[in-house]
């Protein structure tokens, strides 16, 4: 089978699976199996079609029929598209298996519809990243948005989900409008919607700047960059967990794809400040995202905030790369895009894994509140283990995958800060500092996420009911956990192929970035990393104590079987670290971010007497961006609307007067 046929087969499987699942909506269980299996198989075919393209570095083009005159239906799988297809397909494999058991929760509530939406969602994402025509791009982009909107609102009885869906819907469309305007600018200059023509478009510098900024902001809304992020922590957790994994894992990456496609591929990253803008937004998103993540008590929201952070890191790599391209430093350009893309696939894998893990917890506990969890690793050891691997990866611990991409990002930032103007020399080290801060806070965040959820005493209600999740869910998570290792240890091989994607984008030959078991940026003298060797080292460190114990040391008892010492008091589960307490030490450090509003500081004795029962302690992060940016905007719009309402009197005669006046004005205008 050729890659073209495999690609079409993959899309075909998604669509057929979706339709059959919809048809079997009455029988939820079978619909579940159909949608899950087809997503899995389609994912496998997708990988099979993308990998040869990445290895050979040569894409393929599929010409469709011409339904409408201005839209040529062309699918162009170049290395970048193939890379994105690979990422989406990988997650589709994992979530496909996972959903077979996970969606049993929803049997009787329209599982077939859910399977249908899920498969269409994945298919639309693959088409978004492979289509070669702006018109169809927007069609599939919109399809992706709509389907994911339905998935966010799937739990109709959940008011929060409905609200989150609405916010998501509005924000997504704001983004789409900006992208649309950017594409129309291209259309004005080229007279066609084909991406092929966009690449050679001869835009004036001002138009270029405008087209880039519009596209960047439009895609940025979808990617969840600060300050357009606030829909993301609402919408992603509201969806079913397999969908959250897809949304956080890959959907926001389609926006990164859009930024690279427009900024680098179409416009050739022609101004140096574009890269700097992307870098700045990336750094801000990374720091703010992780700060909000640390203080979150809702497990899925924590992961969603962390997605904002990781999008920021990806954008830092991409921004540095764009700056390198613009200033003619090709090696920095390739390194930056490589770092971005590597982190993109890594984040897809470990964030997918973590969301699936969170889904497993929710599947058994039916709550997302971390304060009601604790000690789950005892009841769900495999879920705990895979979540732990995901947490290690995202905290960028070697030899796992998160470390490799962050390492490349650092070196890109260092390499970029050696040349150029004073502003560049200043901005890139600052970005590196932001990245370091982010890295430290991420570790804190996931020590908390894993620690509060999976270790310590159980703080919820009845713990006897909790048991390990069904095996298909474990397989789904296990595959992604293996992926974390493969992408980390296989870095010396993988780096070359991803560098090929970056160099194909810039039309230059690929530099050598790996040698044997080690990888290096630019040259091996600058820095070197060998993840397999790190693994050997880590394993060695672990084995050493075991050897000592084995050769005559005393065995320690199993400490988890005993309660910890509580200074002589009777131990209670309330003494363990809680989620809120864990993050509390950060509040004074970052007080401008964690706006603490103490609405009721001091109460008189009489007030306390009367209102003792009514007093409550609410711990919630002040919604800073909403309060200072979005609410004023909203109030302004409502004010304008109210003013405009005075024209709508409800009286037919007034409307006629408007018609007469307009007609009169128009007629007079024609006469003149």
């Amino acid at each position, binding site marked *: 089978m050729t890659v073209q046929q495999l690609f079409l087969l993959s899309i075909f499987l998604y669509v057929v699976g979706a339709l059959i699942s919809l048809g079997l909506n009455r029988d939820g269980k079978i619909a579940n199996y159909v949608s899950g299996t087809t997503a899995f198989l389609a994912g496998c075919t997708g990988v099979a079609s993308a990998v040869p393209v990445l290895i050979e570095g040569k894409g393929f083009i599929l010409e469709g029929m011409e339904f409408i005159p201005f839209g040529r239906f062309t699918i162009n799988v170049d290395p970048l598209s193939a890379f994105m297809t690979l990422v989406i397909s990988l997650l589709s494999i994992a979530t496909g298996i996972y959903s077979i058991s996970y969606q049993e929760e929803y049997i009787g509530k329209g599982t077939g519809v859910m399977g249908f939406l899920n498969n269409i969602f994945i298919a639309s994402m693959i088409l978004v990243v492979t289509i070669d025509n702006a018109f169809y791009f927007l069609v599939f982009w919109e399809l992706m948005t709509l389907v994911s909107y339905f998935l966010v609102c799937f739990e109709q009885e959940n008011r929060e989900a409905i609200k989150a869906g609405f916010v998501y819907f509005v924000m997504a469309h704001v983004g789409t409008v900006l992208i649309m305007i950017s594409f129309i600018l291209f259309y004005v200059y080229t007279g066609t919607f084909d991406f092929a023509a966009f690449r050679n478009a001869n835009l004036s510098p001002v138009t270029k700047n405008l087209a880039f900024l519009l596209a960047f902001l439009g895609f940025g809304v979808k990617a969840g960059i600060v300050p357009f992020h606030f829909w993301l922590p609402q919408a992603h957790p509201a969806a079913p967990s397999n969908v959250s994994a897809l949304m956080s894992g890959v959907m926001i990456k389609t926006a990164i794809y859009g930024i690279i496609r427009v900024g680098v591929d179409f416009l050739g990253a022609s101004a140096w400040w574009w890269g700097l803008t992307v870098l700045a937004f990336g750094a801000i998103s990374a720091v703010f995202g992780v700060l909000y993540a640390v203080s979150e008590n809702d497990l899925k929201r924590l992961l969603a905030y962390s997605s904002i952070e990781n999008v920021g890191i990806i954008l830092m790599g991409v921004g540095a790369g764009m700056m390198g391209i613009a200033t003619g430093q090709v090696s920095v350009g390739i390194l930056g895009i490589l770092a971005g893309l590597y982190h993109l696939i890594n984040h897809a894998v470990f964030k997918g894994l973590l969301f699936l893990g969170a889904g497993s917890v929710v599947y058994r506990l039916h709550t997302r509140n971390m304060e009601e969890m604790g000690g789950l690793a005892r009841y769900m050891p495999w879920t705990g283990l895979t979540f732990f691997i995901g947490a290690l990866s995202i905290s960028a611990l070697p030899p796992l995958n998160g470390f490799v991409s962050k390492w490349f990002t650092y070196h890109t930032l260092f390499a970029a800060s050696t040349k150029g103007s004073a502003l560049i020399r200043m901005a890139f080290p600052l970005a590196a500092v932001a990245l370091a801060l982010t890295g430290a806070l991420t570790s804190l965040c996931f020590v908390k996420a894993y620690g509060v959820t999976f270790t310590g005493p159980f703080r919820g209600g009845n713990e006897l009911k909790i048991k390990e999740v069904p095996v298909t869910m474990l397989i789904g998570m296990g595959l992604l956990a293996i992926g974390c290792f493969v992408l980390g240890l296989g870095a010396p091989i993988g780096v070359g192929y991803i560098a090929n994607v970056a160099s194909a984008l810039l039309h230059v030959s690929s530099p050598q970035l790996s040698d044997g078991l080690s990888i290096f940026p630019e040259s091996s003298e600058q820095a070197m990393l060998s993840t397999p060797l790190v693994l050997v080292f880590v394993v060695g460190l672990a084995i050493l104590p075991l050897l000592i114990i084995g050769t005559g040391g005393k065995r320690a008892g199993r400490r988890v079987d005993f309660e910890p010492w509580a200074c002589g008091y009777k131990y209670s589960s309330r003494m363990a670290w809680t989620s809120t307490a864990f993050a509390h030490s950060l509040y004074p450090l970052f007080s401008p971010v964690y706006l603490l509003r103490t609405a009721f500081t001091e109460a008189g004795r009489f007030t306390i007497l009367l209102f003792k029962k009514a007093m409550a302690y609410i711990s919630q992060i002040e919604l800073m961006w909403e309060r200072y940016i979005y609410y004023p905007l909203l109030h302004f719009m409502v004010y304008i609307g109210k003013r405009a309402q005075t024209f*709508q*009197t*409800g*009286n037919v*005669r007034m409307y*006629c007067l408007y018609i*007469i006046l307009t007609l009169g004005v128009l*007629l007079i205008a024609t*006469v003149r």
Partner: protein
Amino acid sequence: MSGTNIVNVLSVLLILTSMLVVETRKLRMAAYMYRFQSLVLVTIFLSIAVFMEAKPLYIWSITALITKTFLVPYLIFKVIKRVKEQEEGVAIDKKLTIILAVGILALSFAVVEPFHMQAVLKLRVALAVSIAHFMLGLLCILASKNALKQILGYCLMENGSHLTLAIMAYNAPETVEIGILTDAVFAVLIMTIIARRLFKDFGTLDTDKFTLLKG
């Protein structure tokens, strides 16, 4: 008297009748006036058909005769029978309406001044009248608070636009005209039904009292 002159004179008669519709107090009388005016319109259609040798217009005039002079007034009379004679509720003073009507006429004549198309040139007066007629319909709606009177105003607008159509495109296929005419009848039918239901609920046809329905 040449053909164009006849059409032009008839169209002046049209303006007079539509002024009568606007100014008549009694609803029943206004409906009769409307019927009379439609008759004038049919004659205009006929005369254009004769002088321009436009065959489709014969069919136009027949359908216009059926719908405008019989069907529409019949529908309105039916409602009047149901709601009895209502107080009209004048919104704009009579003198003012006349002044406004004069202004509208002047504006319409000014508007058609630059038209120099061959076909239209001969019937310039009629074209101006048709535009003015449309605006007079709006004025009728504006001047009266009564829902039925406003429906009549809408009918005046219809007549005006039909006249424009007949002058500008007298050789248009019959199907176009039939479509437009039946459309007008259905519009009036629906509006009368709404007027009757409103009367049932509110006990009046004064549209100013209907603002309760505002969203």
